[in-house]
């Protein structure tokens, strides 16, 4: 019995420690005088979500490649700050003002969640370091659907919008919903009449497979296996150009079907507010090196991601534009705040 409790207490202690390894100090940031910056202690990379999801995977793979290639010699540890669709993690990073040893992984929810009034912090509150990956949205239907391309679907939606239901994993006003709205609107569908339901726990794919709903709005990567098995077909993807890779290269873009619109599920890294410029320069360079490395190319291939490097400045400009567009669209469909 003693042993059992000992193990229990040890395991519990380890867990507690794992949860408390954050460190508020920002000391140790050398290079204050506009010189160069070198990290002087472990760099903490926050995934503002639980283990096993997209943010977590990106953060862990990036940290692993940095370590294995030696691009960054200091250790990187990934911690999960789950909750509020990211808001809890962002609030945490926001509190690390000026620290050069903290960063977090982000993607479009960093815009969608604040736009929907669910976070006080948006991308403009943080220091953009670099974007590294692009992923794209896909619109899939059951393999025996009568629609063969996006125009078939959108023609039906123009004629009888009530007859088509779109399903995604996230809530209305968030990524799965808005990527569909954006493309459909460009095709001439009335964006205020799009029927969208949200389904968790694998319910979205299930509902498309059993015919309860018509269209699955999701990430390209989620569709590949089901397409290979012949269960679903992808009517169109939101990328500008055809993607590379087996199966992926068969998916037609919306643009090549005459719909002049695209949507990027960008993924990159941000630091806390007021990060020193020398540190930003350092990380920009390191992320560029990572993005160009063979090792990271392997990672991209494994998950079906595309390369998309942007330095901090370019990134910020890109995000400002995206945010304006999305905000306008949200207001048009009555979800603006």
């Amino acid at each position, binding site marked *: 019995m003693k042993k059992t409790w000992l193990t229990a207490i040890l395991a*519990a202690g380890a867990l507690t420690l794992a949860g408390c390894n954050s460190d508020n100090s920002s000391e140790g940031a050398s290079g204050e005088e506009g010189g160069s910056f070198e990290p002087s202690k472990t760099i903490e990379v926050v995934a503002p979500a639980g283990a096993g999801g997209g943010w977590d995977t990106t953060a862990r793979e990036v940290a692993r490649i940095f370590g294995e290639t030696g691009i960054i010699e200091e250790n990187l540890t990934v911690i999960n700050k789950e909750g*509020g669709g990211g808001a809890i993690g962002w609030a945490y990073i926001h509190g690390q003002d000026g620290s050069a040893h903290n960063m977090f992984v982000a993607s479009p929810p960093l815009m969608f969640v604040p736009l929907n009034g669910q976070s006080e912090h948006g991308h403009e509150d943080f220091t953009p370091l670099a974007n590294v990956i692009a992923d794209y949205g896909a619109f899939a239907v059951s393999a025996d659907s009568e629609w063969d391309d996006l125009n078939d679907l959108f023609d039906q939606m123009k004629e009888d919008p009530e007859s088509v239901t779109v399903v995604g994993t996230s809530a209305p006003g968030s990524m799965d919903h808005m990527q569909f709205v954006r493309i459909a609107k460009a095709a001439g569908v009335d964006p205020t009449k799009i029927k969208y339901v949200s389904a968790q726990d*694998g319910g979205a794919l299930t*509902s498309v497979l059993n015919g309860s*709903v018509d269209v699955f709005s999701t990430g390209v990567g989620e569709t590949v296996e089901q397409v290979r098995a012949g269960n679903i077909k992808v009517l169109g993807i939101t990328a500008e150009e055809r993607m590379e890779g087996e199966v992926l290269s068969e998916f037609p873009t919306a643009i090549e079907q005459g719909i002049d619109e695209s949507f990027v599920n960008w993924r990159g890294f941000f630091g806390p507010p007021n990060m020193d410029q020398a540190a930003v320069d350092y990380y920009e360079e390191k992320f560029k090196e990572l993005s160009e490395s063979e090792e990271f190319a392997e990672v991209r291939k494994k998950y079906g991601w595309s390369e998309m490097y942007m330095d901090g400045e370019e990134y910020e400009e890109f995000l400002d534009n995206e945010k304006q567009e999305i905000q306008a669209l949200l207001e048009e469909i009555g979800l603006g705040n």
Partner: protein
Amino acid sequence: MDAFQGLLAGFQVALSWEGILFVLIGVVVGTLIGMMPGLGPISAIAIMIPITYGMDPAPALVMMAGVYYGAVFGGSTSSILLNAPGISGTVATAFDGYPMAQQGKAGKALAIAAIASFFGGTVSVIMLMLLAPALASVAISFGPPAYFALMLMGLTAISSLSEGSTIKAMISAVAGVMVVTIGIDPQTGTQRFTFGNVNLFDGFDFLVIALGLFALAEVCMLIMNRKNRNLSDDQKLGSLKVTKSDLKEMSGPMTRQSFVGFMLGVLPGAGATIASFISYIFEKKISKNPEEFGKGSIKGLAAPESSNNAATSGAFVPLLSLGIPGSGTTAVMLGAFLVLGVQPGPLLMSDRPEIFWGIIASMYLGNIFLLVLNLPLIPYLAKILSIPRPLLISLVIMFSLIGVYSISFNTFDLYMLLVFGALGFAMRVFSFPAPPFILAFILGGMMEQAFRQSMTISNGSLGIFVNSPLPLALIIVSLLSLTIPAFIKWRSRRLSLKR
């Protein structure tokens, strides 16, 4: 490769020294973590993901699977001994397991739980092996209307979860439904009852409520009644022996509920928690002595225990054969697969048969290991009850806090645990039953989402619930389960009046 050859290949993986070693590590880690109140398979698997980086995928996944079903196996221990559910799937285990332990039959209760878990686990692995590909179509047969009807069926059973006042049970259930609406509504993105507090955006985790209402409330009761009981050590442990008549008594529930649990496990979104509740209610409804349930009934313990373990294997059907994760835990498992470069889905069986069948084959082995490991541990585990009361109470509180903290590493959840502990204590004092609250919390959220998804799809027509056979059948069953007992009561009263 046909299924038989595939299974042979699977056993080659599972029975290699590497396979055996990793199954063993997986189930030991899983069962230990599951035993601790509040620490469940999600945390265990999440911790393991970084460890398995760079490992060969087959043994790594066999180990992760072992952690998962091992945690469900071990989860019953703290439910039975301390009324502190180890994982959400073992809340129903406490209904009869804890009273048994209080009556000085802790050892026996643990043994029954272990046997029922083993039985449920093994039966469901056999079904998984024979039917996984065929069951893929069952897993996707439920659309939103059918889920709504299934949850409705579960809710109609609330009255049977209560002793005494039906009105109090209903109040408790309504409170449960109210609590589950807190958070961001997935269908509109609107915040409900969050008061703008970011910590409430995701609503409450099930474990915060279960540990509050059960473990902490029980701790308060123990402190209140500290002078009442004085069992000697021997009485506390009781005999380990499960007699032939016990086995006979539990054989019916075990067999039935292994099937029920497995099928509910196959449905994405249902899973071990709902399965264990439905199995418990099922057995109580068909029992000749329903009044024994909740007071240490062997059937009431065996039913949820075989069911939750069977559901765990069932959850591998949509995961392995469709790539659909049906729960938070299987979603983390899916992440683990992807990190190891394995894509679960319809093609896994043909692309990577050694992994598909290796996992299934390893589950036979894992279940045997679990039984062999757990049975000899029982006397030691049961001795936890002979720890002096003040120390025991402190340990329960400590583990509840750690368990809740490990869900999201957020101190806000700890305060909420205390709030629910206080609520649970008040409910006990004023004899409002906690199980209806918990059941309504689990089912209510899914029911609301399924209802509103259905309404959007049907453009607001209720006909969607009766126009297809599956939801219609489930709704008819729910109506019958409400009316038949009332009718029987009414008839027996008339008969007795005539006499």
